[in-house]
C-alpha cells in the first residue's frame, strides 16, 4: 500500500494537518499506568476542539465502562469463553505514531486511510468526481468537525447487546482512530475503500471505530485491515463498527485482522439493512491471543438481506470467540450466515449464533451455518447455533458440523500425484473457497488468499 498524504477534497486539509507522525519510533514514556480516569481526562482535554455532544458521549461511555462488571462465568453470552484472561490492566494509549507499518498486498482501490498507533499517517484522496457527488471518506475526528450531524445520526444508534457492552463503552470513551465513509443516494463506487489500522509497541491499546453509511440505492465496498507492528507485542484492541445500508443500498464490508500473538482483541459490529438493502460482511480472523468478534445484523425493512461470512484460522493456543445475531424485524427479509473455522494445534474456537424472527416478520428466510475443520487432535471447537422464532410462516434452518479432512479426498488428490502437503493445502483452501467465492471483486479475493496463506507459512 502507498501512504501518500494528500488534502481531503472536501475540507482541504491533509491528514498531517491533524496528526504529525513522529520521525523516530522512540515512544515517549507515558506518565499513566493504565486506562484510568487520569488518562481519560487527558484524552478528553486533547479533544476540546470536537463537538460538545461528542465529548458528552465519551464521558457517558467512560462512566458506563466503569459501571459495567467484567464478564462472569455464568453469563450466557460468555459461555465457553476464557474469562480469566480478559485482563485490561497495564495497557496505555500510544503517545506517538509509529513509523513501522506492515506492508499488505495491494489491490486496486478508490481511496485509503492508514492509521498507525491511533493516528492517521497516510491517505489517498477520494477521486474528485466522487467527492463532487458527495462521497465522504475521512478520519473520524475530521468527520466530527465537518459532518458532525451525520455522525450523530449514525453513531452507535443501536446498542451493542451480545455481551461486549463494557468493551464497546471503552471504545467510545477512547476512540480516536476511526473513519467515516458516506456514499450518498444513487452513487455507486466500484473499487473498494481501504482502511488500515496498525498498532506497534508493547502494552499499548487502540480503539478503532468505523462508520459506514450508504444512502438510498448507493453501492460501495469497504475493506478494513487490522495489524500489529510486531508479532509478539502484548496489546489490547476494542474496535466498533456501525454499518448502515439505506433503502436498496448494496454494502460489502470486509474486515481482516492479523493482530500480534499476544493481543486481546474485541470487535463489535452492528449491521443495519433497510428496505431492499443487501449487505455482505466478511470477517477474516488470523491473529490475537484471544479474539472476540460480535456481529449483529438487523433487517429492518421488507426485502432486506444480510450475508454474514467469516473465516478463521486458529493455531497455537489462540482462542477465537464469535457471537452473532440475525434479527429479522420485518416481513420478507432474508439472511444467510456462514462461519468457517480451521483449527490447528491446541486452538479453541467458539461460535455462538442466534436468529431472532420477531412476531411480525412473516416470510422470513434465515440460514445459519457453522463449519469447523479440525486439523489437530487437541483443538477444541464449540458451537452454539440458536434460533428464536416468533412467526410461523418462515423458513429457518441452521446447521453445525465439526469434522476433519476426509481421508478419501486426500487420497484422491495424492493418487493424482499431488504431494500430501500440497493436497492438504488445496483441501483447506477448498474449504474456504465457499466463503471467499462470494466476493465479486477478484483482486480482493486474491489479496485475502495471500493474507490467509501467510498464516500457514508460519
Amino acid at each position, binding site marked *: 500500500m502507498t501512504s501518500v498524504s494528500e488534502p481531503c477534497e472536501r475540507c482541504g486539509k491533509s491528514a498531517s494537518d491533524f496528526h504529525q507522525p513522529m520521525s523516530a519510533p522512540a515512544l515517549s514514556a507515558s506518565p499513566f499506568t493504565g486506562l484510568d480516569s487520569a488518562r481519560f481526562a487527558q484524552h478528553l482535554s486533547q479533544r476540546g476542539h470536537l463537538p460538545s455532544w461528542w465529548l458528552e458521549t465519551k464521558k457517558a461511555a467512560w462512566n458506563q465502562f466503569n459501571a459495567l462488571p467484567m464478564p462472569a462465568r455464568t453469563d450466557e453470552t460468555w459461555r*465457553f469463553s476464557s474469562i480469566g484472561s480478559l485482563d485490561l490492566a497495564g495497557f496505555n494509549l500510544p503517545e506517538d505514531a509509529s513509523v513501522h507499518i506492515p506492508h499488505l498486498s495491494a489491490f486496486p482501490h478508490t481511496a485509503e486511510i492508514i492509521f498507525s498507533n491511533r493516528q492517521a499517517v497516510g491517505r489517498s484522496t477520494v477521486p474528485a468526481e466522487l467527492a463532487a457527488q458527495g462521497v465522504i471518506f475521512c478520519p473520524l475526528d475530521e468527520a466530527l468537525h465537518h459532518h458532525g450531524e451525520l455522525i450523530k445520526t449514525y453513531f452507535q444508534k443501536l446498542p451493542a447487546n451480545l455481551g461486549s457492552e463494557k468493551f464497546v463503552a471503552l471504545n467510545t470513551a477512547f476512540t480516536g482512530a476511526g473513519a467515516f465513509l458516506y456514499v450518498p443516494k444513487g452513487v455507486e463506487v466500484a473499487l473498494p475503500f481501504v482502511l488500515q489500522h496498525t498498532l506497534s509497541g508493547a502494552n499499548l491499546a487502540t480503539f478503532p471505530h468505523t462508520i459506514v453509511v450508504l444512502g438510498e440505492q448507493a453501492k460501495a465496498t469497504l475493506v478494513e485491515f487490522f495489524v500489529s507492528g510486531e508479532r509478539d507485542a502484548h496489546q489490547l484492541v476494542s474496535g466498533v463498527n456501525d454499518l448502515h445500508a439505506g433503502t436498496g443500498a448494496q454494502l460489502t464490508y470486509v474486515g481482516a485482522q492479523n493482530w500480534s500473538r499476544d493481543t486481546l482483541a474485541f470487535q463489535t459490529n452492528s449491521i443495519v439493512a433497510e428496505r431492499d438493502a443487501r449487505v455482505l460482511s466478511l470477517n477474516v480472523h488470523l491473529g490475537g491471543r484471544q479474539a472476540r468478534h460480535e456481529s449483529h445484523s438487523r433487517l429492518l425493512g421488507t426485502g432486506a438481506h444480510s450475508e454474514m461470512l467469516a473465516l478463521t484460522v486458529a493455531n497455537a493456543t489462540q482462542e477465537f470467540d464469535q457471537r452473532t445475531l440475525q434479527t429479522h424485524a420485518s416481513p420478507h427479509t432474508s439472511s444467510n450466515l456462514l462461519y468457517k473455522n480451521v483449527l490447528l494445534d491446541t486452538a479453541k474456537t467458539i461460535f455462538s449464533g442466534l436468529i431472532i424472527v420477531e412476531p411480525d416478520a412473516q416470510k422470513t428466510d434465515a440460514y445459519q451455518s457453522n463449519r469447523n475443520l*479440525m486439523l489437530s487432535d487437541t483443538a*477444541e471447537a464449540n458451537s452454539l447455533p440458536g*434460533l428464536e*422464532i416468533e412467526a*410461523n410462516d418462515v423458513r429457518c*434452518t441452521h*446447521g453445525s458440523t*465439526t469434522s*476433519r479432512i476426509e481421508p478419501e479426498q486426500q487420497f484422491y488428490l495424492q493418487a493424482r500425484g499431488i504431494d500430501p502437503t500440497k493436497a492438504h493445502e488445496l483441501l483447506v483452501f477448498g474449504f474456504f473457497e465457499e466463503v471467499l467465492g462470494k466476493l465479486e471483486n477478484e483482486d480482493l479475493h486474491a489479496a485475502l488468499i495471500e493474507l490467509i496463506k501467510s498464516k500457514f507459512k508460519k
Partner: protein
Amino acid sequence: MADTDTLPPADDTAVNPVGGIDQAVGNFQYDVNYEFDAGTGLTEDTVRYISSVKKEAPWILEFRLKALQTFLDKPMPTHWATKDLENIDFSKIRYYLSQGQKPKRTWDEVPDDIKQTFERLGIPEQERKFLAGVEAQFDSEAAYSNIKDIVAKQGVIFCNSTEALREHPEIFKKFFGKVIPTGDNKFSALNSAVFSGGSFIYVPPGVKVAQPLQAYFRINAENFGQFERTLIIADEGSEVVYMEGCTAPKFSTSTLHSAVVELVALKGAKIQYITVQNWANNVFNLVTKRGVAHEDAEIKWIDCNIGSRLTMKYPGVVLKGKRARGEVISIALANDGQHQDTGAKMIHAADDTTSVIVAKSISVGQGRSTYRGQVHIPKHLKGCKNNTECDALLINTNSRTDTYPAITVRGDTHAVQHEASVSKVSEEQIFYMQQRGLTEAQAMSLAVNGFVNDLVRQFPMEYSVELKRLIDLEMEGSVG
C-alpha cells in the same frame, strides 16, 4: 397403553365421536384420605419427617439434609432458563403425602377408589397379563405393584425406591446419586432432599426382560409436588425396557413435579426408557434424567412431552465405555400457556462412542417449544460421532420456537453434525386434503401426525396410539 376405545365407559362421560377421545379423562380429582402429610413448606423438619415416616437408615437422612442445604444454596438458573421459574412458591407446596400403605401385590388389594382412578386413566385390568409388571405410583407411594413370576424368577428386582432402600441397600447405595449428583442442579438437589416413590430396577447379568416394565404416575393432591426417584441398573449383557406415563388432574394453582431418574447400563447392556406425559397445564415439570453407558452398552431415551405449564427436561447419556451408544428421541407439543423446554445431553467420555438426538416440536396457539441440547466431546478421544436433528413445526401465527444447542468438540477424528429447521404446515398439503373431504382441522391433525410419524413409530404400539390421540386432542380448536 391406555386405549380408551376398549374401555367400558365408567359413566356418561362425553366421548368425542371424531377422535375417539374422552376429553374428560385426566380432568378430575378423587378425595383421598392421606394418612401421612408433611404439610406445606420446606424446612429441615419436613425432611426429617419424611425420613422418619419412611423409617430410613441414618445415612439416607444425612444425604437428604445435605441435599436440602444444596437446594437452598443454589440460585434459580434463570440466567439461562425462563423467568417463569421464579413463580414457583416453594412454601406453598406439599412435599410428602402418603396413605401409609404398603405397596399392593395383587389387584384385589388395591382400594376401589384408586382402581376407579386408574380405570378412568385407561389402565384396564385385562392389560395386566400383557404387562410384565405394573408399578403404579399413586401420589408418593406405589399403590399397586406386581411383577410377573417369569421376571422375578429371572432375578429381576422391580420395586419402588423406598422398598429398595430397605431391602436392597447394597445395590442401591452403590449406584444411588452417582449418575446425577445432588448438586447437579437446583431441582436434582430438591429431589434428593424430599424424594419418595419412583421405581428401582435391577436386571442381573445376561437377563433380557422380554416385556416392558411399566409405571404410571399421577399427581392427585392440589399443590402437591411429586418427587419420585428412579434408579435402573442393567447388569452386564442384560436388556430392559421401562415405560412411564403421566396424566394429572387439572388444578387451579401450580403444582411441582421434580423427578430424578438415573440409569446405569453396564458392559454390553441395553436400557430403553420411554416416557409419555400429559401434565395439566399448571404443572411445573422439572426433571433430571441421565444414564451412564459403559463399554458396548446402549441407552435410549424416548421422551414425549405434552401439557404442563413449564417442562424442563434434558435426558442425557454419559458415554463412559468404548463403543457405547446413546440416543434421545424427543417429541414436544406446546399449547397455549405452555412452555416445553426440552432437549438432550450427550457427554462422550470414551473412544468410538456414538450419539443420536432427534427432536421434534410442535407449537400450537401461543405455545412455546424450546430445544436445548449439549454435545460434549472432550480431548484425547478418538472416533466419536454425533448426529443431531431438531425440527420445529409452528401451527399458528403467534406460536413460538427456540433452539439452543451447544456443541464442544476436541480433536480431529470425530464427526459431529447438527441440523435444525423451522417450518409450518404447507397450505398445499391442507388444500390437498380438504379437496378429499377432510375438514381443515382434520387435515391439520393429519399433517401434524405426519410430522412426528417417524418418531412415533419408535414407540411401543399402545403408546403410539395414545400419543396420536393426545396430539389430535391438543390440535382441536387450533385452526378455523
